[in-house]
């Protein structure tokens, strides 16, 4: 049975079922969401208005036996950046969509009535119900109550109060196999879902048509090679499973690239207390789980279950970026406070990177002092209750900076930088500046090559080779984000062309294609260009591909400055 697209019109509350147009057939994940946004969304539209659309799509390999292929992409015009946006997450929803033969949901229009709705997706299609029962509730409660109603296996996407209030940092939560939360985090897609008045979406894959493979034997061979390669790599096979992504705290600190106190310093004296090594020991001593999966088929297991001192669950998916954002960035060296902050943000439904950066700017503004953990928790709760200050914080770092007249605001195109100082890890600076998503470390993650000696080495403090590195990675990532594979397979794929080919062969075997690595890269380039053209049509120019001027200040310990010329940055787009 061929895959379907469901178009959900929230203006007249009608759902239509469409065949997949020929030009969308070879696309999935980010490639598909960005192509649909570029084709169907008016670039100059208001992101919360009637012309924006929320696209939800599993990746090309999602639902197959390929390891780590359960990522779900969501795309729209971003209320945070005004650019095109794709955000992806694990959880169970992506594989359920794939098994139901659903290539994408296109959610469009705006309801005329001031109420909330839910969508239910199953083998017979998509239904829209008015559903105000959960309005105002946090994501954890929504997840629990919806599971009570539909059973534990049900797939759920939901927004918290931040999304309902259409805050620009609002995310979309995705239920994971244990009923806890993953996030379509960046760019305020929760506000787009909130503008369409959808509180949650349930997905039941019972008796779905399943995933068709054109050449099962070829798929089996390629997926075996791929799985072996991912498991054999020391990063994806070993390190991430023990220490999680937070293993980066100590190495970034030692290398002088850990942004501290709102990007004032490159090293944090409290680094050891918030490091991956400490997270690991803490989890073991409290009978948590250091090696948790976010979706079935994950062999990397970078997630974890972090418990409090009494052994009660606090959070999972406790990431380096979050721990940095509220740790080094806010001068807080208390993991329990940061874990509690993560829990509150998941519940309220805001992106933990944007909110961490916003909190650093709030401290810069003197709303609370740097290091004030109790103050952080109080302010995060204000986001959920929607006080005026809570709404300012929930609008992201740029909104806080503008409101309080602050110049040290680490954003590009309105989106907060993450846990790598662009002055001392220059490849990341190029990615922050040029990404079509606004500042986004995942768009072209140069840290393996700049810092970790994985996939080659380009000196992080020198300009040479950084534009080329960022370009190569942004092209590769645009492809990877379309497959449904977790970005962390890149650690092994970067090192190994045979694995890159195995990845292409899995796509080939599933769809009956014969794509080469070069074809894959060409698809990556096409996706990037499509996104860039949308941004240009929305009014962005090369002048927006710039870092804030405070990065001219030297950052210790290397006293590195941001020293790329405009021409050097603009050369990124020469491909």
């Amino acid at each position, binding site marked *: 049975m061929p895959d379907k697209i469901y178009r959900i019109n929230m203006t007249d509350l009608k759902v239509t079922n469409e065949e997949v147009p020929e030009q969308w057939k070879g696309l999935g994940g980010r490639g598909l969401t960005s192509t649909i946004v570029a084709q169907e969304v008016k670039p100059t539209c208001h992101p919360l208005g009637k012309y924006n659309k929320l696209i939800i799509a599993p990746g090309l390999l999602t639902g197959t036996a390929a390891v780590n292929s359960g990522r779900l992409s969501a795309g729209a015009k971003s209320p945070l950046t005004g650019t095109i946006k794709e955000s992806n997450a694990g959880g169970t929803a992506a594989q359920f969509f794939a098994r139901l033969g659903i290539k994408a949901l296109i959610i469009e229009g705006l309801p005329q009535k001031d109420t909330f709705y839910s969508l239910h997706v199953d083998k017979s299609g998509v239904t829209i119900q008015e559903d105000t029962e959960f309005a105002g509730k946090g994501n954890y409660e929504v997840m629990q109550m919806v599971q009570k109603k539909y059973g534990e296996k049900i797939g759920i996407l939901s927004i918290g109060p931040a999304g309902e209030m259409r805050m620009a940092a609002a995310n979309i939560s995705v239920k994971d196999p244990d009923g806890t939360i993953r996030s379509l985090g960046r760019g305020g897609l929760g506000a787009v879902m909130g503008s369409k008045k959808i509180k949650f979406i349930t997905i039941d894959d019972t008796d779905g048509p399943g995933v068709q493979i054109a050449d099962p034997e070829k798929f089996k061979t390629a997926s075996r090679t791929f799985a072996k390669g991912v498991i054999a790599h*020391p*990063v*994806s096979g*070993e*390190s*991430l499973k*023990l*220490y*999680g*992504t*937070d*293993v*980066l705290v*100590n*190495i970034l600190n*030692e*290398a*002088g690239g850990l942004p501290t106190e709102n990007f004032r310093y490159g090293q944090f004296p409290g680094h*050891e207390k918030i490091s*991956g*090594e400490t997270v690991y020991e803490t989890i073991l001593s409290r009978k948590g789980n250091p090696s948790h999966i976010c979706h079935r088929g994950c062999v990397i297991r*970078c997630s974890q279950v972090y418990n409090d001192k009494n052994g009660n669950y606090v959070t999972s998916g406790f990431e*380096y*970026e979050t721990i940095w954002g509220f740790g080094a960035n806010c001068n807080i060296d208390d993991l329990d406070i940061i874990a509690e902050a993560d829990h509150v943000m998941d519940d309220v439904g805001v992106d933990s990177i944007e909110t961490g950066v916003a909190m650093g700017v709030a401290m810069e503004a003197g709303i609370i002092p740097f290091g004030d953990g109790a103050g952080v928790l109080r302010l995060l709760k204000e986001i959920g209750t929607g006080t005026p200050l809570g709404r300012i914080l929930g609008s992201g770092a740029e909104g806080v900076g503008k409101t309080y007249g602050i110049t040290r605001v680490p954003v590009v195109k309105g989106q907060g930088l993450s846990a790598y100082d662009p002055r001392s890890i220059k490849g990341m600076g190029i990615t922050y500046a040029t990404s079509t998503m606004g500042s986004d*470390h*995942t768009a072209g*993650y140069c*840290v*393996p090559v700049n*810092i*970790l*000696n*994985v996939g080659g*080495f380009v*000196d992080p*403090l020198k300009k040479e080779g950084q534009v080329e590195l960022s370009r190569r990675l942004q092209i590769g990532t645009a492809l990877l984000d379309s497959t449904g594979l977790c*970005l*962390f397979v890149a*650690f092994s794929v970067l090192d190994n062309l045979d694995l890159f080919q195995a990845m292409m062969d899995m796509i080939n075997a599933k769809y009956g294609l014969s794509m080469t690595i070069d074809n894959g890269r060409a698809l990556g380039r096409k996706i990037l260009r499509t996104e860039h053209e949308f941004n240009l049509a929305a009014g962005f120019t090369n002048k927006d591909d710039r870092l804030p001027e405070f990065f001219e200040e030297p950052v210790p*310990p*290397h006293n590195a400055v941001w020293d790329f010329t405009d021409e050097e940055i603009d050369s990124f787009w020469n491909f």
Partner: protein
Amino acid sequence: MKVKLFAAFRDGRFKEKEWGYFDGITVGSILEALNINKKEAGVLLVNSRHAETNYRLGKGDTLSLFPVIGGG
């Protein structure tokens, strides 16, 4: 001279240690003394800069040793 170890390199070893300096001591000789295979050593930082195994250390240097790790 100081040597710092991270992640799995700490298992059965130490976090941080003052190291006896001698003229001509290299990063490689410290790896050997610690029984760490060169292939296992992902990142070698001397005073926050990347270094090779043949790097000759100075008296006040800090050497930080990491296995192959990653995150993001």
